């Protein structure tokens, strides 16, 4: 029953690849944004907060359509990236990764921001008085203390990226081997008369992957808490 066909294996590998790349690319942006929102006051802060959470509340197809407008072949950012960096999103797995990253971004920012807000500032101050400059403080004190939140954010974003469908299929359509992730494969199988069995297999795999990611997040998070917060 768990003999996966080529199409199913391809979808699984593609999903994992897209989710890993999406999460990796979103991480630095999420840490920066989380830090800005947690520590700084500036004009437009509420707007930034709102923008960050937009993919969370907008219908995914709308997000996909907006990605098409901005990052597509004729979109302003898409044209710039293509001309100067040679990056193309149309109908490629890079587009699927972008869609997944955008959809998972708010889920990564929230725990990171929360973790940064609840760190004991006095530890940072102590490091500073002992002579560390702000970069060193950030890298050796702030980040490790925020690690449980960062891990939680990373794994939530990963799980979300694995399951991303609406924005992806609107932005880069459904191409086996390129943009057909597990969700898109299930969607296709459900439309074919005898596709219910492969669809069911993919559904079970998707559930298992999601559970592994979430349980892993919980375990890693708790280990980091014990290690850095000493309980």
């Amino acid at each position: 029953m768990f003999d996966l066909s080529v199409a199913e294996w391809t979808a699984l590998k593609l999903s994992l690849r897209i989710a890993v790349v999406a999460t990796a690319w979103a991480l630095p942006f999420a840490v920066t944004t989380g830090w800005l929102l947690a520590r700084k006051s500036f004009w437009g802060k509420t707007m930034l907060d709102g923008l960050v959470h937009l993919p969370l509340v907008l219908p995914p197809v709308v997000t996909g359509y907006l990605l098409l407008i901005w990052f597509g072949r004729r979109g302003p950012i898409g044209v710039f990236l293509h001309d100067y960096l040679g990056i193309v999103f149309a109908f490629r797995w890079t587009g699927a990764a972008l869609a997944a990253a955008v959809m998972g971004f708010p889920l990564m920012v929230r725990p990171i921001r929360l973790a940064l807000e609840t760190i004991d500032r006095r530890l940072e101050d102590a490091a500073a008085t002992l002579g560390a400059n702000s970069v060193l403080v950030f890298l050796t004190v702030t980040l490790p203390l925020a690690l449980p939140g960062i891990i939680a954010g990373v794994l939530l974003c990963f799980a979300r990226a694995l399951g991303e469908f609406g924005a992806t299929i609107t932005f880069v359509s459904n191409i086996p081997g390129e943009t057909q992730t597990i969700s898109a494969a299930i969607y296709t199988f459900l439309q074919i008369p005898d596709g219910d069995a492969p669809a069911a297999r993919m559904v079970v795999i998707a559930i298992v992957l999601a559970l592994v990611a979430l349980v892993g997040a919980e375990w890693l998070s708790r280990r980091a808490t014990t290690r850095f917060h000493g309980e």
Partner: protein
Amino acid sequence: MSNKSSLFAALAAVFFVASWLLSAQAQAQEKSITVFAAASMKNALDDVDEALAKQSGIKVVTSYDASSVLMKQIEQGAPADVFVSADLKWMDYGSQKKLIDEDTRVNLLGNKLVLIAAKDSKLAPVTIAPGLDLAKLAGDGRIVTGDVRAVPVGIYAKAALEKLGLWAALESKMAMAANVRAALLLVARGEAPLGIVYATDAKVEPGVKILGTFPDDSHEPIIYPVAATKSAKPDAARYLAFLRSAAAKSIFESYGFAFLIKPTS
């Protein structure tokens, strides 16, 4: 009353009013007919529904998507009263699974398959025949259509390309959108240099132009059957009768559909 309990009372009141309003709306929905129609029917059928509402007050709620998706939803118990498919295969599937009322089934409309490009594309019109180098025409871009394994337009497209001997070269250049209108959007936005959609879709989208029409004999005749579902409301019969009327005929034909039966009235 203290502040907290008056706030609670206010919230409760809002909640009850909201649910009463929503349930009233749900009841109104129950009096209307639910139609599941192929995505390519969108503009034409919206106009037909409006004409029907003006003429007889029957309210119609229509869900547009790929015929494959819709029939699978009906199979799972979705409360559709009428099903309009873009090919015979999905209506036959419904018939086989005893989901539709055979007596109400009518092959209503016909359509043509066309090759499109963005309005400002530099590609010139072509004759679609064996030997046409579509791969070269597409360049390094993709040809987008509905999923060739399930969505009617994709199935017609693959059959046509196979008949013309072009499929082998193109298989790796295809991109599959969720339904024909999604494919149309991708071509209109210039994401894909070429697309295969229905002639009626090309007609309603100003952002695309037709480069060529697939010969009728390269694919199964494109026929749109309509039928009431087994669980249809009584008004569904009036809806189907209206679809067969001269008024509906003129609307469908204005969008480019071929009307395959003799219109009543």
